[in-house]
């Protein structure tokens, strides 16, 4: 039975409308496929690049316990990248091609990973704020209309919860320490607060694809809604920790039932996304070096497989 493009399209729209899931071999509009590939690839790249900032601290973790935790966390990030690359491949992309697109800059990763990790407190703050923001973004994606992506997100969200809690516990421990340790935590929060808010993407008014992505069930909430949710969740956690979030406009708004907060520096966001962040070149160079240094392993494994 041959179906016309219109019938296929109607069937696709009907599946979306009843909150059904789109599966890999289903017919889908080109725009949906392209948007999905772009989003999943960018997410996968973020997990892979995201290993670098914290990976820097593995050899300098202050105890065996902290080292084991950090190793497990960084290993999880690699795993998340792999789940997501696998999901992207169900849309007809090629793994090697995605890696190439990351390295040559045709595909992006989250701007947050272009900031350096200058102190050990950054490991805790990344777990608390960066992974916290990621969870806010990702929990709704467990209901994404694309089945393989939604399933990958379910696994990822379960594991991210450990990431956030280990970070917060690390910070609680440091906040019970010396004045120098407390100052280290505050200094790290000062550096990561605003970039964490940028993780939700540009304001809704400047996010032209949001409407269509929401209609397709690719996105479930707008950037600004998620950002607000994150701020509301985080302020009490900051109070409990005893740190100050670096925003003098931050205060509870009784009428709205939400915290008001200041304007994100969107010029900085654009610059970092555009490649001018403190670590963009480093991150890509390191990814490229790892890829190049691993090429003989890939070839040797293929040669071994061919022989046996």
């Amino acid at each position: 039975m041959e179906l016309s493009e219109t019938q296929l399209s109607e069937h696709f729209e009907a599946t979306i409308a009843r909150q059904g899931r789109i599966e890999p071999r289903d017919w889908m509009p080109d725009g949906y496929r392209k948007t999905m590939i772009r989003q999943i690839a960018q997410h996968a790249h973020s997990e892979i690049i995201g290993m670098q900032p914290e990976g820097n601290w593995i050899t300098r973790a202050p105890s065996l316990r902290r080292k084991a935790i950090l190793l497990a966390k960084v290993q999880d990030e690699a795993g998340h990248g792999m789940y997501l690359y696998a999901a992207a491949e169900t849309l007809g992309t090629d793994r090697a091609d995605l890696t190439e697109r990351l390295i040559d800059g045709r595909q992006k990763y989250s701007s947050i990973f272009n900031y350096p990790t200058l102190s050990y407190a950054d490991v805790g703050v990344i777990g608390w704020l960066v992974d916290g923001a990621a969870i806010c973004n990702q929990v709704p994606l467990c209901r994404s209309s694309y089945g393989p992506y939604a399933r990958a997100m379910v696994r990822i969200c379960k594991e991210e919860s450990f990431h956030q809690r280990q970070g917060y516990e690390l910070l609680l421990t440091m906040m019970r320490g010396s004045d120098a340790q407390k100052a280290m935590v505050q200094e790290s929060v000062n550096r990561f607060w605003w970039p964490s808010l940028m993780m939700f993407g540009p304001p809704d008014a400047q996010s032209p694809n949001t409407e269509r992505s929401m209609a397709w069930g690719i996105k479930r909430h707008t950037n600004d809604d998620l950002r607000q949710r994150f701020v509301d969740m985080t302020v009490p956690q900051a109070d409990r920790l005893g740190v100050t979030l670096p925003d003098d406009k931050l205060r509870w708004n009784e009428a709205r039932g939400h915290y008001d907060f200041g304007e994100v520096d969107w010029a900085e966001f654009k610059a970092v996304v555009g490649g001018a962040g403190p670590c963009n070149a480093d991150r890509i160079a390191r990814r490229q070096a790892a890829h190049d240094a691993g090429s003989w392993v890939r070839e040797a494994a293929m040669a071994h497989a061919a022989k046996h």
Partner: protein
Amino acid sequence: MPPSTEQPSTEPPSTGWPLFEVFLRGKRGLNHVHVGSLHAADPEMALRHARDLYTRRNEAVSIWVVPADAITASSPDEKDPFFAPSGDKVYRHPTFYQIPEDVPHI
């Protein structure tokens, strides 16, 4: 590594390892369930990678890996005519049969 003296492969050196689909048995008594895929040079490596990638938190007591190109699939859409033969056979379900209330154990 010294250069190989064997016959050169007829194919250019592939940078991509083949794709394997991964199935896990969560615990004894359950079926293996598909969880995702991965690339590996051969089945043994696929198993090892599947353990590292999909069972970091005791998710499985057994793993299957299957070369992705060995799977023959129906078109997955439920509306596909492939599944039509079972669609109109409601008499295959126990609820099709009306049994009086006073008949026990049925």
